[in-house]
């Protein structure tokens, strides 16, 4: 038996509306989480030209640190301390790792962070084990904020949205209003200029890397309890964050925001509008025989394509617009 297609038959009915509203909400939420990760990655790339492969690993470290810190204190302390600690680890990475291979070029830097993925992921297993840890949503945020169409919207999701937006605002102000921000912005568009202006480039690099990884840590703090804190979380997040950053345009904060939201919405809608092309055709009165090849392809569910869509989008944009949605320059 097929799923009923009443949604399509009575488009505009509350059922359809409900599905859309919740897909938008879920998509926004996922998108903002992606953005929290992508913003740090794109800043680091824009400033240093380093594509930090281990970014999602720092995200995972954020979640685990928050788990440990909150088990001794509480969530709010962890929310402050865990990103700071992750940022500190990032600074160490830059100071004692990346700086040494800088002379060998960007590919060497990329390879170093690639190796770090293995090291960090394994260290997490070493310290916290392979079994998911019980990093829970704080009780003070564990309630239903409002109920819409009979579906409740948990307060913690609203909190994630709030933190993500606050973070975007803070980064934006930092970049536009402060001196450091101006230097970083100058470096984003003309990296060779900053050194010429007499700034201590290595120190700025360390700071930017620490800041970027700290943002990843913050994303980990927020997402670790919303999802599940387990050693596979970096690997499942890593490639998609790259997609976001490349799609939005390497080094572009606005692009990262737009790309995060687009990809968040696209993947969410692909799941919630889970009808195969054949279903759609059937809805308009066209039957397709599943046995032939065209029929076989048409019977692939959207949700299955959904997993592939972000990567397809990334490959297409790299072919047709290599600098991404809003990238300032081609890598």
């Amino acid at each position, binding site marked *: 038996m097929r*799923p009923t297609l009443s949604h399509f038959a009575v488009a505009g009915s509350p059922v359809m509306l409900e599905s859309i509203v919740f897909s938008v909400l*879920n998509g926004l939420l996922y998108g903002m989480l992606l953005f929290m990760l992508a913003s740090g990655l794109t800043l680091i790339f824009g400033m240093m030209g380093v594509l930090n492969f281990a970014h999602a690993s720092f995200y995972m470290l954020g979640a685990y640190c928050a788990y440990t810190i909150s088990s001794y204190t509480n969530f709010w302390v962890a929310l402050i301390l865990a990103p700071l600690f992750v940022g500190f680890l990032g600074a160490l990475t830059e100071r004692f790792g990346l700086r040494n291979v800088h002379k060998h070029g960007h590919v060497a830097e990329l390879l170093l962070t690639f190796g770090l993925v293995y090291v960090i992921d394994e260290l997490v297993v070493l310290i916290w084990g*392979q079994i998911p840890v019980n990093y829970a949503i704080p009780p003070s945020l564990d309630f239903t904020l409002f109920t819409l169409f009979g*579906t409740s919207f948990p307060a913690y999701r609203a909190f994630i949205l709030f933190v993500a937006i606050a973070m975007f605002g803070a980064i934006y102000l930092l970049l536009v209003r402060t001196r450091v921000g101006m230097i970083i912005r100058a470096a984003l568009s003309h990296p060779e200029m900053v050194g010429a202006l007499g700034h201590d480039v290595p120190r700025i690099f360390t700071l930017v890397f620490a800041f970027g990884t700290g943002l990843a840590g913050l994303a980990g703090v927020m997402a670790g309890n919303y999802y599940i804190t387990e050693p*596979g979380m970096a690997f499942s*997040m890593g490639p998609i964050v790259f997609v976001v950053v490349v799609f939005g345009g390497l080094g572009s904060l606005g692009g990262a925001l737009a790309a995060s939201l687009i990809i968040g919405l696209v993947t969410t809608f692909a799941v*919630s509008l889970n009808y195969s092309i054949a279903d759609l055709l059937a809805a308009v009165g066209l039957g397709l025989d599943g046995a032939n090849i065209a029929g076989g392809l048409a019977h692939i569910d959207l949700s*299955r394509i959904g997993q592939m869509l972000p990567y397809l989008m990334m490959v297409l944009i790299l072919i047709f617009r290599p600098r991404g949605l809003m990238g300032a320059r081609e890598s």
Partner: protein
Amino acid sequence: MKHYKGLVRRAVAAVGVAAALAVPTLGSAADDTIKIGYIDPLSGPFANVGDAGLKHFKYLAERINADGGILGKDVEIIGYDNKSSAQESLQILREAADEGVHYITQGNGSHVGGALVDGVEKHNRRNPDNRMVFLNYAAVDPALTGEKCSFWHFRFDANSAMKLQAITDYMAEQDDIKKVFLINMDYSHGQAISRIAKEMLKEKRPDIEIVGDVLHPVGKVKDFSPYISQIQSSGADTVISGNWGNDLSLLVKAGAQAGLDVDWFTYYAGGLGTPTALGKAGAEHVKMLTEWQENLVEDYEAPELREILEEFEQRYDGIEFYYLRIKTQMDMLQKAMEKAGSTEPLAVARALEGMTMETPFGTVTMREQDHQLLQPLFISTFSEDYPKYDSEGTGLGWVMDAKLDAASTAVDSVCEMKRPSS
């Protein structure tokens, strides 16, 4: 942990003399133990499930050894991490054969189970002097005892068709079920549930409407809320899911967060973190079909099981005794070896065929036709009002709703077993 020690020694040797192409050999290859290779995920998204299973086996082996072992030999469980990969499992199979392992056991993932049935079959054909027996404690794809059935494979868990038969028998009597939603993992196991559930419901309760049938990627979904809103908007009152591990925890967690008001019929809600994830939100709503839950020792006379469950929980903080079928499997293996008077795989496999055994809940039979164990099954509800044992300290426990006799769970099999002549 002999295996692990050996590993460390090899690790050190390899770090020291990395260039020397030495052959990895295991410290003790002596024949005085019965080695059972446990091939399941010990890393990755399903590591918690694999780890719990391994602990069950080790604990039960320890008990057998304390009673003098089997035929005077100790049972040794060797854990191998297959990373949920069929391919990795086949490589392990080869490794295990070299290490003198003649009995392997696996449960998590019918895709792995299928590859191992095939792999063991090929291995035994090509290496008749070094055969292996595959004892399957949890891979439930009906095909493994159906079209893919093998003489060397024995299944100790009810297969998916049997479980659905039991669930739909029960559902057929619940008049308030009107709309059913199916959500399952996208591989042979989930696909089988989706297919069979629709067939059986249509036959037993043609008035029930299937309002959704979703397959999601295995171990990759982090946020189930899109699926939950799909269930919500379908108007379902009942959900059937064969999900396990994180895929089940995250699913019910997302459902609970969204305030989804449905009854869940599950295979695996009983342990390994799922009760914790369910919490109060699952009370009175989540049902499961299993061969065992702790409170059954209140309903039946089972002192040994009571001792085991209490000792196990004490020993492993946070893990409860969840797999009765692992005990059944070990007991039947012991019985078969004693009957055959040997640990030689062919003789033991022959002894296992058609074997019956008494358990506190009734007689279990290893069906000769397809090597599928028939055992009594229970439907239970997650409830605040439980007899004695709560689940994972949640303050909620499982209450038996119905018992299904071993005979009533039987589903016909298409298996045409090819038996080796020698």
